[in-house]
């Protein structure tokens, strides 16, 4: 206590210390170790050795798995677009039309996070099944080709990813819409803007930070995901996450897996940095929750 009274500048340091030590030990150090591991050669049995000449791990990994990389980016983009299409109208409705039901509706948006991620994804196997409550009647009515399958297709994987991460899109968009000063919209109407005109030139620009944050927060987990591809897809829908997890946990090819995950990390950090440049990091961190 006496030490703190003599050096008040120590207070923030002491408050930060435990968390900082934890994050440095179990976030920063592992990532440095992973970068080092990507320059390893050898196997788990014979032991690994480090050499910069092993940079070929990167080129090998890329040439071998460029298809999975491309697919991850493609699925990630598609899922992010779907999330936006679902999230924006819903966020708009909650922010402007829901009235007193607002907090209850927001709670429903995050409700999926309170049940098992795996079980919810498996739930889609039931919902999208060939004769399920949705496809069954549609097929019986002749609206859908009876031979059509949704499970085990790229469509199912993208839909699954979009479903799992859509709350990350809804929340930041909602926050930015909710913050809009209603008087701006009234002013636009007083100045004879049509409701579409007011939406396009007032609401939408002001919602942009939320849209950016939401897109990033959806895209990041989407391109790293492997659960949806594994549970809802087929062998031709594998993403880079599937490769990384197989290399690490089944084949034990740590160097290749480390190179693959390091590249994924760099790709995403580049996105975050670009975002930070455009809008500032405060915006991003405050929109995250």
């Amino acid at each position, binding site marked *: 206590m006496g030490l703190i009274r003599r050096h008040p*500048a120590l*207070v*923030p340091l002491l*408050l*930060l210390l*435990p*968390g900082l030590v*934890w*994050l440095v030990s*179990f*976030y920063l150090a*592992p*990532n440095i*170790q992973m970068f080092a*591991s990507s320059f390893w050669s050898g196997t788990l049995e014979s032991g690994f050795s480090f050499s910069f000449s092993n940079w070929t791990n990167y080129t090998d990994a890329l040439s071998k798995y460029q298809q999975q990389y491309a697919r991850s980016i493609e699925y990630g983009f598609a899922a992010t677009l779907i999330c936006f299409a679902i999230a924006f*109208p*819903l966020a*708009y*409705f909650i922010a402007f*039309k829901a009235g007193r039901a607002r*907090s209850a*509706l927001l*709670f*429903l*948006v995050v*409700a*999926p*996070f*309170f*049940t*098992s*991620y*795996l079980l919810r994804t*498996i*739930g889609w196997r*039931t919902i999208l*099944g060939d*004769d*399920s409550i949705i496809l069954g009647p549609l097929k019986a009515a002749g609206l859908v080709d009876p031979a059509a399958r949704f499970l085990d297709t790229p469509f199912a994987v993208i839909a699954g990813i979009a479903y799992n991460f859509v709350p990350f899109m809804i929340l930041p968009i909602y926050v930015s819409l909710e913050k809009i000063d209603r008087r701006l919209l009234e002013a636009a109407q007083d100045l004879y803007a049509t409701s579409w005109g007011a939406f396009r030139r007032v609401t939408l620009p002001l919602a942009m930070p939320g849209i950016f944050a939401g897109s*990033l927060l959806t895209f*990041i*987990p989407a391109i*790293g995901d*492997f659960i949806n591809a594994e*549970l809802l897809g087929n062998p031709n829908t594998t993403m880079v*996450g599937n490769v*990384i*997890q197989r290399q690490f*946990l089944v084949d034990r090819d740590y160097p290749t897996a480390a190179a693959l*995950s390091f590249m*994924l*990390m760099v790709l*995403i950090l580049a996105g*975050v940095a670009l975002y*930070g440049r455009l809008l500032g*990091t*405060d915006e991003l*961190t405050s929109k*995250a*929750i």
Partner: protein
Amino acid sequence: MSIIRKIAAVAASRFLTIYASLALLYLLLPILTVALFSFNDPIGRSNYSWSSFTIDNWLSLFRDPTLVSAVGISLRIALVSTIIATTIGTLMAMALVRYQFRFRKALDLFVFLPLATPEIVLGASLLTLFVTLRIPLGEITLILAHVMFNVSYVVVTMKARLAGFDMRLEEAAADLGATPWQTFWRVTFPLILPGIAASAVLAFGLSLDDFVITRFNAGQVQTFPVYIYLKVQKGIPPQVNAFATLFFVVTVSLVAIGALLQRRRANLKP
């Protein structure tokens, strides 16, 4: 002209309501499916298609000892990692919100980075560290990992809560002769307690449900999500759905009670 415009406006608003309802249904449909299939009496081993209603799964919740042990392990890890992460995360958030010091902005970004890193990278990088240092994988490594990702969530949530804190309350306490220690426990802590509780619920839920990072660092330990994953091929017993539904109901009730208590407290204020 104005009539057409009015009709268009009404149509647009109707459309928005329907669209929003459908979007909510889409969000909730899988949860309802999970709950519904806890009452299914599946034919064969896979619990994907509906056959008949039963409450047997709920009565035989504890039948499979592996499942019971997996649930126990998950709850234990969630409890320990939540206590550690909430404590150190709250302290960190206080430093970041209330003090000006060099590198504060950089630190803000650093704390945010784990949230911007795909889970698979977090899990994989921790695994390479543990393998290199020859640390055996198990419950301890899982707690280390879960605290790591939860600290960032707690800091971000608490920062938002602390930003609206009225510092004059602490100044008033000090003016009335309270020591810093008394001020913290009698003024600051009770005021930030709802935020701490919200962060703890979030951290507990994230830990309980984490699969990706856990999968990489669990070794032979089976948590609830790992148990589910390993059962996907052989068929998931319906008791799993019952447990998941139970967790859902308990967390939702806790959150609802918390919200009600806070509302009552807000109403009591003059």
